[in-house]
């Protein structure tokens, strides 16, 4: 990157460290932090949308829709989440390949599931075997995002469903007394009022989502854990920057990253919670009212 870095073996001390930390592999490492943040930025709104939809479905008057909503919210209880992560990614992958198989393959005489094994013809592979490595990365990342969104959506649905139930009935009745329709009560009263009850649960989920991001590594995406292991491992003299096993320091760096994310979220969400509690008929709102007097 810098001119001084042309011959890494000749330099030492601080210059060596600067050169080391700006090597090509390290820039990839820094980009992988962006991958993690991108995952958070995409998953959080998607999971919110799915969760909101799930909660609305669970409250629906129309029975089949209600069953779907209830099943979705009940799905994630009691089973280790990591099972879902491993399961969904392969299931999604195979689902897509199976549909593709029906579409493009000529020889459909062989069953796709032979015994306990799964076979599709070569043309049906997604992405095609000839695709660039970047396509494989992007495909893996999108599968991961979809999986995260589905699993977290179920959790969000649980929280929002509870929050909708927690809005005092009297507030909704007041709306009805003013002649609002069902939809108007929902839009103008239930949804705005629900957030103060949903926020503690959503805060919790956000913290959990942050801590779930290393699972990207298990899903085969080249994320920060992957690079920390790659870069930290012992480098012999054959490498440009030889060094002993430094994985411990890389993982310490990751630990600090996560702790900083947690602390930052705590501060920001604390502010939002204060803002939302203003004027609410809850203990927090009451405490604020008393403090103001």
């Amino acid at each position, binding site marked *: 990157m810098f001119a001084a870095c042309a011959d890494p073996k000749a330099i030492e001390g601080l210059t060596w460290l600067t050169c080391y930390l700006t090597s090509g592999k390290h820039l990839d490492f820094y980009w992988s932090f962006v991958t993690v943040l991108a995952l958070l930025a995409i998953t959080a709104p998607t999971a919110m949308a799915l969760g909101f939809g799930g909660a609305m479905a669970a409250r629906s008057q129309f029975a089949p829709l209600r069953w779907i909503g209830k099943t979705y919210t009940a799905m*994630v*209880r*009691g*089973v*280790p*989440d*990591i*099972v879902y992560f*491993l*399961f969904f990614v*392969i*299931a999604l992958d*195979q689902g897509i390949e199976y549909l593709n198989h029906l579409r493009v393959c000529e020889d459909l005489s062989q069953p796709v*599931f032979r*015994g*306990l*094994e*799964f076979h599709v013809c070569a043309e049906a592979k997604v992405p095609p075997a000839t695709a660039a490595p970047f396509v494989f990365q992007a495909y893996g990342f999108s599968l991961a995002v979809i999986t995260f969104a589905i*699993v*977290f959506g*179920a*959790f969000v649905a*649980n929280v929002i469903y509870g929050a909708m139930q927690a809005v005092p009935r009297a507030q909704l009745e007041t709306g009805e007394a003013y002649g609002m329709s069902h939809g108007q009560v929902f839009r103008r009263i239930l949804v705005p009022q629900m957030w103060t009850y949903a926020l503690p649960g959503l805060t919790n*989920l956000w913290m*959990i*989502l942050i*801590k*779930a*991001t*290393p*699972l990207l*590594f*298990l899903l085969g995406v080249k994320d920060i*854990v992957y690079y*920390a*292991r790659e870069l*930290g491992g012992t480098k012999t003299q054959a490498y440009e920057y030889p060094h002993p*096993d430094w*994985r*411990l320091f890389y*993982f*310490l760096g*990751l*630990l600090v990253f*996560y*702790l900083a994310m*947690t*602390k930052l979220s705590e501060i920001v969400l604390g502010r939002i919670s204060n803002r939302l509690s203003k004027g609410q008929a809850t203990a927090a709102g009451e405490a604020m009212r008393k403090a103001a007097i």
Partner: protein
Amino acid sequence: MSTCWETFGDYALRSIGIGAKLLPKTDFTLCQQFTLIGSGLIWNVYFGALALLFGFFLANALALARIAHSPWLRKPAEWFVFVFRGSPLFIQFFLAYEMLVMLPRTGINLLGLTIETSWLTRAWAGALIVLFLNTAAYSAEIFYGALRSIPKGDLEAAEAYGITGWTKFRRIQWPTMLRLAWPSYTNEAIFLFQSTTLVFFSGFPAFSQMGDALYYANYFADKTFNPFIPYPIVAFYFVLLTLGVIWLFGRINRYLNRHLPQNTRSRIRLRPQLVR
């Protein structure tokens, strides 16, 4: 093709190294999957039960330190809880493994005695230590919250009867704390059992293919390219395990609440949890 009974004999204790040496390579049967994944569950139970048992004591100490007035006690406890609750368990496993590997191979020489260290890098010890510290941090937070929500009236009543100091703690505060914390603690226990599946997916290697339930499920999914059988089997076993934990903790909850009238007892409500 062997009968299911033979398969059971071969693989029921495979995860702790008893039985057939080689894992099945071809012609996977449902019976093999059920037996082997069930055998892996031994490890999940081992990690979960021991970490909970040891963690309980440390969590009590940490909760007391957190509520202490002296900053010398309070600050370290707060930091401990923040570090273990604020970072992914996954990273903690990696970090612990790297740290334990760095210990001198030959053992530490202490006053002429050589203390072996290599066993610490094995999953049965290293991962257990991480899980123990982790669950202690989470439980400490629960116990701390419970300590703070003991009704003021209870403490005043104790003092009015002349119960103070250690006696007050032992007879009033601690039992009440336990009773208030128990429903949340049950959830923590379930959550811990579920996180034991992370052990062999991070840092700690599985020696001669002796792994936990998820390790074997992953093995089958990799070999057969079919996730629809092994993962639901894991899910099935974990639902059973969760039911077992709920039953056991429910019994303890009943015991803790035995002096209260039926309608004021706190009930255990299962709350969904995710990754930690």
